[in-house]
């Protein structure tokens, strides 16, 4: 029997699922091997058990975490798909602001005042913290990045289908810049989070003339202290550095420091 694969989305742009649909050249071959039972971007069909559940998006409301717990109980493997599911992505920046202040920033003062007397005014009010999937359930594998990398997706699926353990080395983006003989971003007079960020993306942003903002999250061994000193030595202000650190990796490590 073919393994049952499902995609579930929470707070996200569904761009990771679209990134997968863009792999047209392999998609049909892949569908020969698996049974796709839930995929809102393409089909809607339900199943009681899933072999691999891909979770896209960050978790905001209580009902979302209940839904996630239910999916976990019915899945053999849970894969966090993309930056939102892996580390909260940009929306987790709101974790650094008091909920009421955040609400005011987004919906205005009047809405903020109204919600304080009527808690049902806007259901999103019920969320106090943007969470990654791993903060709620056990995650078997992470497919990092904004959006996720289609090659890593394939590596994972091929490994699981052939009963192997998929291998995603925890190395810095610098490794891939060297493999591509890229000019270092710092040599170009710009600054980069590559030395402390998860690679695996083939340094795609730097290959195309941009910088790394660590959308794949901070490495578990990231030397944030040394990186901070490096950024300061380039004349970047403390505030700008903090804002840069919080852009993508807010829910992970910076919230502790």
């Amino acid at each position, binding site marked *: 029997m073919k393994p049952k694969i499902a995609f579930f989305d929470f707070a996200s742009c569904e761009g990771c699922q679209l990134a997968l649909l863009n792999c047209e050249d392999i998609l049909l071959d892949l569908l020969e091997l698996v049974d796709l039972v839930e995929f809102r971007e393409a089909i809607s069909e339900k199943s009681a058990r899933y072999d691999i559940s891909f979770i896209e998006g960050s978790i905001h409301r209580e009902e979302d975490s209940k839904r996630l717990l239910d999916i976990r109980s019915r899945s053999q493997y849970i894969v966090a798909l993309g930056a939102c599911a892996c580390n909260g992505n940009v929306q987790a920046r709101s974790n650094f602001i008091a909920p009421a202040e955040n609400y005011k920033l987004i919906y205005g003062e009047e809405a903020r005042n109204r919600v304080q007397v009527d808690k049902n005014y806007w259901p999103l009010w019920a969320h106090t913290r943007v969470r990654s999937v791993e903060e709620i359930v056990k995650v078997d594998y992470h497919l990092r990045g904004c959006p996720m990398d289609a090659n890593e997706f394939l590596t994972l699926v*091929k490994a699981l289908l052939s009963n192997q353990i998929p291998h995603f080395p*925890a190395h810095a983006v610098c*490794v891939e810049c*060297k*493999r591509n003989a890229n000019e270092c971003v*710092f*040599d170009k007079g710009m600054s980069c989070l590559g030395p402390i960020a998860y690679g695996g993306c083939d340094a795609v942003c730097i290959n195309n003339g941009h910088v790394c903002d660590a959308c794949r999250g901070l490495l578990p061994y990231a030397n944030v202290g040394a990186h901070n000193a490096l950024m300061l030595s380039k004349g970047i202000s403390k505030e700008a550095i903090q804002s840069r650190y919080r852009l993508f990796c807010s829910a992970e490590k910076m919230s502790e420091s």
Partner: protein
Amino acid sequence: MNAYLSNLDQIESWFFNLAEKQLFFLPKKTQGVNYRFEPIDHQQSLDLLNYKPTILPPGKNIFPDDEILFSYYKDDDGHYQFSQGVTVNSQLLAGVRACDLKGVYLLDEVFSDGVKDSHYLRRREKTDIIAFNCMTPCDDHCFCEAAQSLDFQMGADIFITPLFSTSHKGQANEEQQCLLEVLTPRGNELIKSLESTECSSPQDLKNHAIASRPQPFGRQFSAPIEQLAKAIHQKDADSVYQQYAEQCFSCGTCNLVCPTCYCFETKDELNLDGSSGKKTRHWDACLSPGFAEVAGGHNFRAEPAARQHHRIRRKFDYLPQRFEQTFCTGCGRCGRQCTTGIDIFNIVNDVYLSVQESQE
């Protein structure tokens, strides 16, 4: 072997001529401040004299990342069929500096030692090298003289020494004479298409050029390299390694840009059909935390200081014991490209000084 005299103008036309016959790599400036070995391009001006060592050393053209070791598929009878790697084309690396030439020479030693590495060696056989002697240190990071790789010419097919002052800018190319020493039969073939005159007293000309170089050439260690190696061998100097480890990102840049780092990992890549695939090898880095992690999850060098220590001992102690050559060529790449500014030159000096102090 023979020696010839020619000027930079003639050498340039010769390069373009050779490039029509085979894959020809030459250092080329990036859009920023660095250089890369890239296929020669007719718009390009030769920058052999003053170019700063390339981002990756030329040896990587012989030891490429993501190299296919073998691929396989299942035939109609259900048998697996294997084929080794990909077709290797001949290539010419020109403008290789002495430090990088020594890097290639040391890779040759390593990959020919014990069980020969056929993947490397078959590429090496198809690689010709035209090396270029340095007349001024390439930049502030250079310490090739101290690392004993200045004037190194083993492994080159042709070795070029400029016979004029390279700091004197604005001189016309045709006035800039160079000495070309042919070192191999392959070099003899290559030089045929160069417009040149035969040189009867190459050693005198070369000695004169070398004598006019700045002294000392590049940075110098606090002691001769043999003494440094002894200090590194004798004492662990943990506090020195610890001090550098505190700045280290463990990104592995120093390993990946090193002309003598040859460690790799292999990867099995299965195709979606489940019955065909390939085995590839990828550059690895001993500064990367996962490098010494083994089955079961134990890591022999979990701490960054232990990894830094290991790297220094590989370059100055372990490999020199086996191959009787220092495995640091003084090219300066690791220090130049480390984003946090860790320089192997400083580590080695500090280890030496700390061992000296502890003995006083």
